[in-house]
């Protein structure tokens, strides 16, 4: 069907640059009428940048957007709405205190002699919602209804306003199964009407359920567009995560590891991650693999006490310990470099020096300040050892580049001489040079006998340094790979829940 009709929207060579970074690199995207097109990729792959370029929230730096054979350059989201591109976000962008009808017709209420005709508006709203298979009372405030109904109202409003292309940015992220059905039934109706729908989500099952085609982005580039009828989950996961599927042979050190350092049994928190058992030994790198939202970050946060577990035991070298908050974790010589460096890692306005000694100082307590000479010695030693590029130790850390910020955070934790180092996405958003250095550092720390737990979406990376890999799906540990089983294809297979390939 797609080949016969003309595309509604055609993007060619869309590029967007941020100072020092390429967010989108010549991205192509073609949408046909009556298709649901999934846009996939890990965080930071460029999905939201692409959407913002389409809707005019960002100005693109290169490329053309052709809508119905006419080139367009929307300057704002209102602009693109008028042209026919509507967007619905995960967080419903409506006014919960107004009625359903008012939300639908805000700014274009039916008038009667200079006044809003409530009766007419109610009728129009009821008719409109009936088209979407929704029978709710339009006179009720929007907040009286579930998020799913609100989501449908948002979709109805967007379709009424634009009506050619509908972009759904994670519409199902906070919905349960029945609510997803409701939203999907609406999407099916719109598809039948001939709208082109862009569907962004992290749930692969939903992608296969509703979408016709999928475009996968990685690091700002399109790595492939597939007709989903001809593709398997494995194909898509491979596109999202792996550069290539060739199993590389690694000169990985034989996985001889030291004594048990930490033993978690039945450790978990309701609504966050299914209870799991995990043992980490000294001199071992345990990798955590899985798609976004699979429970990687949650596992890391739970072990570090950033979120308190509500069940299970933790033992450190055989002794039972409690990890109720990060402070206790630090006291047990745990360390965590968090996923979101900016909001959970660096303290932007403090100097690099202060950022490096922060955790050590916090552990010592405020009344025992580190002597100035010791502070300088530590900071300078780590700047040199990790090759942190900076003009001065006194400069605020927020002025450093991402890679250097990450190294400074590593320095912060290495200064505390940790027994267990947890790294969540240690190489996200950093330049190639720093990337290689951090991987080398992980291997060196393991050789020195430290226990490491690394969560990453870069499969090659995990394969390169992990002595064991734990695969998570739907907030559950589904599989553990060790030794020669650790290959990108096995990890992908485990993530996609397909039979594992023979170990090489």
């Amino acid at each position: 069907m797609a080949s016969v009709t003309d595309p509604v929207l055609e993007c060619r060579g869309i590029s967007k640059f941020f100072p020092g970074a390429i967010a989108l690199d010549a991205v192509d995207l073609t949408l046909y009428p009556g298709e649901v097109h999934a846009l996939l990729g890990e965080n930071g792959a460029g999905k939201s940048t692409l959407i913002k370029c389409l809707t005019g929230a960002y100005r693109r730096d290169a490329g053309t957007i052709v809508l119905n054979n006419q080139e367009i350059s929307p300057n704002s989201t209102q602009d693109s709405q008028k042209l026919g591109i509507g967007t619905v976000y995960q967080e419903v962008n409506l006014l919960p205190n107004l009625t359903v009808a008012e939300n639908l017709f805000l700014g274009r209420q039916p008038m009667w002699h200079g006044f809003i005709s409530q009766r007419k508006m109610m009728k129009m709203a009821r008719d409109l919602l009936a088209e979407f298979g929704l029978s709710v009372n339009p006179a009720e405030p929007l907040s009286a209804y579930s998020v799913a109904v609100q989501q449908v109202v948002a979709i109805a409003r967007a379709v009424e306003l634009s009506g050619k292309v509908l972009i759904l940015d994670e519409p199902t992220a906070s919905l349960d199964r029945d609510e997803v059905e409701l939203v999907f039934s609406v999407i099916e109706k719109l598809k039948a009407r001939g709208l082109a729908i862009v569907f962004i989500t992290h749930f692969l099952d939903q992608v296969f359920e509703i979408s016709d085609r999928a475009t996968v982005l990685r690091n700002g580039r399109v790595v492939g567009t597939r007709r989903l009828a001809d593709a398997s989950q494995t194909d898509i996961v491979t596109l999202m995560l792996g550069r290539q599927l060739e199993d590389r042979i690694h000169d990985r050190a034989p996985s001889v590891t030291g004594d048990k350092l930490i033993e978690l049994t039945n450790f978990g928190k309701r609504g966050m991650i299914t209870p799991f058992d995990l043992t980490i030994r000294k001199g071992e790198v345990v990798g955590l693999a899985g798609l976004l939202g699979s429970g990687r970050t949650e596992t890391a946060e739970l072990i570090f006490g950033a979120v308190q577990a509500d069940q299970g035991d933790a033992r450190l070298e055989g002794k039972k310990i409690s990890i109720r908050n990060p402070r206790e974790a630090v006291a047990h010589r745990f360390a965590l470099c968090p996923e979101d460096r900016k909001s959970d890692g660096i303290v932007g306005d403090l100097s690099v020096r202060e950022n490096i000694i922060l955790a050590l100082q916090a552990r010592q307590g405020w009344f025992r300040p580190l002597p100035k000479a010791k502070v300088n010695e530590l900071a300078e030693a780590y700047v040199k050892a990790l090759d942190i590029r900076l003009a001065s130790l006194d400069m605020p850390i927020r002025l450093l580049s991402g890679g250097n910020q990450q190294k400074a955070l590593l320095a912060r934790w290495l200064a505390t001489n940790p027994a267990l180092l947890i790294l969540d996405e240690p190489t996200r958003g950093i330049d190639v040079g720093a990337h290689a250095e951090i991987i080398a550092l992980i291997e060196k720390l393991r050789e020195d006998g430290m226990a490491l737990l690394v969560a990453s979406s870069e499969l090659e990376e995990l394969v390169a340094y992990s002595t064991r890999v734990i695969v998570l799906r739907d907030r559950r540990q589904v599989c553990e790979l060790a030794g020669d089983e650790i290959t990108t294809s096995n990890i992908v297979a485990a993530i996609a829940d397909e039979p594992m390939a023979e170990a090489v």
Partner: protein
Amino acid sequence: MTAHVHNTFRRITPQLIILAAVLLLNFMVFPDFFRIEFQNGRLFGNLIDVLNRGAPTALLCIGMTLVIATRGIDLSVGAVMAIAGAVAASLAVDGHGWQVALTGALAVGALCGMWNGVLVAVLRIQPIVATLVLMVAGRGIAQLVTEGTILTFLDPGLIHLGAGTILGIPTPILIWIALGLAVTAAVRKTALGMLIEAIGINESSSRLAGINSRVLIISVYLISGVCAALAGVIVAADIKGADANNAGLWLELDAILAVVIGGNSLLGGRFSIVASLLGALIIQSVNSVILLSGMPPEFNLIIKALIIIAILVIQSPTVKHALYILRASAEPQPSEPIKEAKESPQ
């Protein structure tokens, strides 16, 4: 060490310039402004008055600076002054010595601060709302303590705290300078200052770095409560009585203003107590100008507002940026190449 002194000086330069300007204004309307005399074993002079009358605001802004550094605010300090004054007065009336009266007042101030701190740090109520509770309720509590009257006392020890002198210098001056130095030393000679700044800049990161933000936040409100109590005792001692309705009225706003004039961001983070204290002196000097110029009192608040708006405009980022542009366009200077920003934040 010299670099450190240099940095501190650079930090407070704007406040010093503004203070000098306002003092000069004082001198212009009243040429005898800088004259200081020694009579009856006490220093007299307008400058001494500025230092003396500024004591309550100065004391308040010491604690307020720390609270604001954690991204909080303490609206209750004026009310806490009233409570502390009432407690000190009622203890003195009951025949206790000044030591007991002072200790009692400070303990009550600490309790008030603790209350605020628990609301903010444990119950996670927004500071402006949390401290509003005590701001409103505090005067009621103070009235309960004084039983609705102005409670007067005659204990010479207590009066000395507000109206006496030591070596010719009025006691309040010595108290606020000593407390300012003590708290500055306490936060800068330990790691307290840095940890407070870290919490104010990014509490999430700080918590994940193992900082006990809960205890630290409670501590800063506690310090603020104690500072307010001390200010309350001084004000009560000065008039030899506790006035639950008027003691410290609106002074919380002066204290916040002093912190802002001191160049501390209301968004938390880097702070300087010395700069805040200079801010308090600037406010008191402004009051002095209005008084000395002999302007009709109806104009006082308006003139004060105008002067303060002028000070804040000079410090505003927009004006600073405009000045920077002006300077940059005047003469091209060789600028250092920017080394950072290999990648952008996502």
